């Protein structure tokens, strides 16, 4: 069946090249049938890519080791979900998933907008096909998942750390996010190519952008949780270049989601929005380059491979294309109005954008600096946690504050007196909260104290907004249903606050200790006492498990086990941390056992107490809830758009 997969990919490539060339010719020469034909080619490319993906999925499930890819990433002991997750566990499979999502998203976005935005979609088709052509070419010519071999008896297996439920969901979520950013990019490019640079492309792609942003954000949180429970170093985010590669486009997309509101209402920031949408897309491709080129050392990156240079070339070409388009269409992107006041909602959005982009660019510099140093000086340099933490505090804390102030400022302009009046209640709550926090000892960390008080401020402004809005409209449901985007946005803000509290709590107020233990010896930390009871070892299918058993007393009583697994196939170790959650305090007791020796009964343990860390995971669900509220289809808006162009003949 590998031949079928290979043939389907070749057909996809042919169709995408046709959609790119035919679609471009149709758009330039204004030819209707050719444009429809190119659009159909994009639809068919999705179909043939789906066939190729099905072939690979079936091969993975059936453990068909005649596929080199299947043999390299699975073995017979893997359960079906993990065997299937090997689809995105390797380089070639993840590229195929990328192409599948891209053509699927592209076909759906074009199909849904072919009537309302018929003048734009004519250009969107070749742009999407251009991106798809690149991925299809790489899959056909450079990194095929359909290479075959004489089938070995068993495969090499999936890296143990990837055999985790979070790893089944985390990569597809990220791909749905990364690839989703191609849709607003394609429509923005289509708007510039067609010269229709009004707000229609933003309205048409708003939900696509929101969905991509939601997947990217939630995918990162899933990845953070995976790192926390599986990698076993005690943290959830290491500022690893590949982690940063997902964070950067998310930050750019966050800035874009805010600034488009200014363009929709005021006709301002058109150039800025084009830059942001291009930046988000380019960063998503750049992230893929980082993951696949082998230029950075990361647990997330794939082995060094020749596709890195192809990705770099694609990033350069698509960046030049975006930049050229924006420069060409500058006259069409002039703002219709000017900023009336520095104290207005649109100005607040602008400040928010500047902070988000500044944070994004400083992270980008942190990622690029070691690569550039290596290239220019041949030296290996790393940018460590202090760099990122400094900029996170520098830009993140003002962003948090702005998240509270922004919604309280009126559009166009507001007076200091009105703002002061509006801020009175949230301000009082914040001060009271700050005093209480200091009284309870939270003053030991200034960034933590600031993060907590700012969080209290943001939460109080959200409550104030909802209460006042409900009073004005008479009903909470009416308030939310009439402006889902705004109130969904507030729910997302609440999620960010939970995230900030979780990060501040676990990093600024956490405690840790390390100790060598033998049976009967104890270690105490933050009200917990852990006593080593025994070290045990047992054989399970495909692994030898070694565990240190510790009796816990104090904040929680029971037994916690921590140690490692030594897998047989692939022959790799995996650290297994001990974790106990106190949901009342959203706190974790986290035990890392190193050098666990069942013969000498000696273990080196590191115990961490992480207050409020679980709010980070709760924030993920609140974030998804808010995003879903914001992107839920609005029937009235849809009716309005359809009515506008009702008599228009679809192409």
């Amino acid at each position, binding site marked *: 069946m590998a031949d079928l997969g290979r043939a*389907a990919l070749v057909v996809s490539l042919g169709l995408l090249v046709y959609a790119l060339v035919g679609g471009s010719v149709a758009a330039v020469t204004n030819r209707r049938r050719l444009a429809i034909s190119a659009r159909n080619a994009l639809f068919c490319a999705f179909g043939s890519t789906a066939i190729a993906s099905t072939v690979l999925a079936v091969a993975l499930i059936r453990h068909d080791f005649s596929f080199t890819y299947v043999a390299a990433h699975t073995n017979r002991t893997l359960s079906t979900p993990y065997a299937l997750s090997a689809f995105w566990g390797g380089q070639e499979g993840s590229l195929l998933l990328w192409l599948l999502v891209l053509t699927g998203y592209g076909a759906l976005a074009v199909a849904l907008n072919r009537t309302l935005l018929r003048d734009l979609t004519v250009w969107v088709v070749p742009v999407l096909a251009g991106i798809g052509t690149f991925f299809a070419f790489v899959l056909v010519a450079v990194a095929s998942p359909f290479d075959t071999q004489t089938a070995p008896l068993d495969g090499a297996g999936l890296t143990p750390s990837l055999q985790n439920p979070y790893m089944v969901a985390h990569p597809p979520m990220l791909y749905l996010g990364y690839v989703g950013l191609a849709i607003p990019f394609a429509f923005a490019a289509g708007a510039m190519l067609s010269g229709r640079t009004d707000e229609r492309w933003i309205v048409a792609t708003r939900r696509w952008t929101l969905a991509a942003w939601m997947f990217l954000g939630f995918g990162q949180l899933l990845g953070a949780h995976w790192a926390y429970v599986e990698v076993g170093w005690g943290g959830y985010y290491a500022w690893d270049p590949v982690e940063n590669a997902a964070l950067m486009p998310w930050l750019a997309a966050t800035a874009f989601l805010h600034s488009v509101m200014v363009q929709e209402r005021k006709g301002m920031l058109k150039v800025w929005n084009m830059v942001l949408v291009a930046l988000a897309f380019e960063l998503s491709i750049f992230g893929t380059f980082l993951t696949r080129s082998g230029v950075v050392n990361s647990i997330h990156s794939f082995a060094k491979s020749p596709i890195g240079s192809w990705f770099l070339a694609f990033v350069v070409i698509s960046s030049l294309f975006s930049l050229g388009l924006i420069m060409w269409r500058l006259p069409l992107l002039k703002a219709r109005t000017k900023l009336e006041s520095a104290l207005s909602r649109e100005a607040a959005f602008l400040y928010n954008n500047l902070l988000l982009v500044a944070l994004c660019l400083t992270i980008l510099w942190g990622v690029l600096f070691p690569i550039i140093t290596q290239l220019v000086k041949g030296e290996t340099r790393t940018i460590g946690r202090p760099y990122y933490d400094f900029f996170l505090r520098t830009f993140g804390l003002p962003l948090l504050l702005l998240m509270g102030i922004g919604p309280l400022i009126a559009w166009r302009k507001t*007076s200091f007196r009105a703002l002061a009046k509006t801020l009175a209640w949230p301000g009082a709550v914040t001060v009271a909260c700050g005093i209480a926090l200091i009284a309870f000892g939270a003053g030991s960390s200034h960034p933590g104290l600031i993060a907590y008080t700012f969080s209290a401020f943001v939460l109080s402004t959200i409550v104030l907004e909802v209460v006042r809005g409900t009073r004005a409209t008479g009903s909470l449901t009416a308030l939310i249903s009439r402006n889902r985007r705004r109130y969904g946005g507030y729910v997302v803000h609440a999620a960010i606050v939970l995230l900030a509290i979780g990060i501040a709590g676990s990093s600024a107020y956490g405690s840790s200790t390390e100790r060598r233990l033998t049976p009967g010896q104890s270690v105490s930390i933050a009200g917990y006492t852990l006593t080593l009871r025994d070290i045990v070892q047992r054989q399970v299918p495909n692994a030898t498990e070694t565990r240190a058993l510790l009796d816990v007393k104090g904040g929680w009583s029971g037994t916690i086990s921590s140690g490692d697994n030594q897998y047989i196939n692939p022959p790799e170790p995996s650290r297994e941390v001990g974790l106990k959650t106190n949901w009342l305090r959203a706190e974790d007791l986290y035990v890392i056992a190193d050098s666990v020796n069942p013969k000498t009964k000696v273990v080196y343990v590191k115990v961490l107490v992480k207050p409020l860390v679980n709010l980070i995971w709760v924030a993920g669900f609140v974030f998804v809830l808010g995003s879903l509220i914001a992107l839920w289809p609005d029937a009235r808006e849809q009716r*309005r758009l359809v009515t506008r162009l009702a008599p228009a003949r679809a192409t």
Partner: protein
Amino acid sequence: MTILAIVLGVAVAAGAVLLVAWPFLREPVAADDRLDAPTAREARWLELLDERDRALGALKELEFDHRTGKIGDEDYGSQIGPLRRSAAVALRAIDRYRDEMTALDVPDLPSEPVPPPDEGTPPTPAPVPEPYPPPDEADIPAPAPQE
């Protein structure tokens, strides 16, 4: 298995070719093969509707901000006039454009849709209050050039 794969591959390719060629097979000779982009008249009409929506949206936003206490009476008083005036300008521009098109015997323009939903009051066009002078002729957007 290889033969089956070849047959399936050929079937996939043939199906794709058929779908891609379909527009040409359905209409071997098209009476009009031009792309159906919005006409200049339609584009202008959409532009006017956008302006109207933006103006009414700004008014509703101001009303809502005032009712929720984000903006004081004084600021509200100074902003409501110009916003109402621009809304009136946008509404009149739509009426004027429709009249012009009717006079030129242009087929019906798309029906005027409901403005965007928002919080607060139902989307009724705000009247121009007395203290504010009627808009100058220059404020009314010029009609689009005829095709």
